[in-house]
């Protein structure tokens, strides 16, 4: 049996508010790959938010490093939010080309270990997220809960995922 397996791929044929994966068991690590765009009017690049096991409490914290709009750099940190802030990056209506979708890779190691909180990292980017704006992003987040992960919810910071967004979930084994 393969060490890495595609658990599920969602290809959106309609604009969709969120995507949930809830068949996660049997692996050591999870990886989610997103090619995505949102439809929030008047905005360009936006963030992907995540929630685990349906938890809407203020139990998520995120930190990130980014480069944007040419030579600019920065870092963000948020504690006690109701979602993973640093989940990835989407393009949007102000992105010049409708065919331009942002890319994100989310890693969730040891997600089923009930002795530790769920930590994750993500690397993402959008070229021309706005008319001249670019964005590359690396972040880490923690969900303050030791429960084994049973579901992952992904949704845009604003609006919905647009048609053509593709989100794939992979499971990676350790034996």
């Amino acid at each position: 049996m393969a060490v890495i397996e595609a658990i599920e791929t969602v290809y959106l044929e309609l604009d969709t508010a969120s995507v949930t994966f809830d068949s996660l068991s049997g692996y050591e690590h999870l990886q989610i790959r997103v090619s995505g765009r949102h439809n929030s009017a008047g905005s360009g690049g936006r963030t992907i938010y995540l929630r685990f096991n349906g938890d809407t409490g203020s139990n998520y914290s995120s930190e990130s490093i980014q480069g944007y709009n040419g030579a600019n750099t920065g870092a963000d940190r948020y504690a006690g939010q109701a979602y993973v802030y640093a989940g990835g990056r989407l393009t949007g209506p102000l992105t010049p080309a409708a065919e331009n979708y942002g890319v994100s890779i989310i890693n969730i190691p040891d997600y089923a270990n009930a002795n530790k909180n769920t930590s994750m990292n993500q690397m993402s980017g959008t070229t021309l997220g706005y008319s001249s704006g670019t964005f590359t992003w690396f972040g880490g987040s923690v969900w303050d809960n030791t429960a084994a992960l049973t579901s992952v919810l992904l949704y845009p910071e604003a609006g919905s995922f647009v048609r053509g967004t593709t989100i794939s979930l992979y499971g990676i084994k350790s034996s």
Partner: protein
Amino acid sequence: MAVWNVIDHEEFSGSATSYEKTSIPASYDHLYFVASARTDVSTYLGSSKLTFNGIGGTSYDLTTMYATTATPTSGSETSNDCINYIYVAANSVLSDTFGTVEIWVPNYANTSNYKQVLSKWTCPNNSTTNSQWIVGQTAGLFMNTAAINQFTFSENTGGNFVQYSTFTLYGINGAG
């Protein structure tokens, strides 16, 4: 031949100063390492390091970029005895929280070239205070043409990785 292969996996049942895999076969194209780790050092940022083949000396260069404040930082070091600037969670971070580490070592078994290393790491925390969280990535160079057959990932300040820290080493194949 499978593309992904598990070389080794360990979950620590107690504290230990390092994860080490010896006798790594040369039969893959690349190495990929995943860790979910926390140290017992009484600080926030758990400094860790990487060495190959049991070699220290002056065999490693590195360049890094990271954020532990609102202003990202970059830097480099030469002729190190290890690849450091790899951070996980330490004992003062939110309880039960472990850092994430990914390391790629492409073409690890070739005997003609030095070995390039790329690591990404996070120490997430429920704090926005400077130096109580960190995210970053570090590129390293092992200046040795020997095939890598030993991979050692260690706590870097005299402490230990704690129970439930996990370490997985994969061998990745390209097309035959």
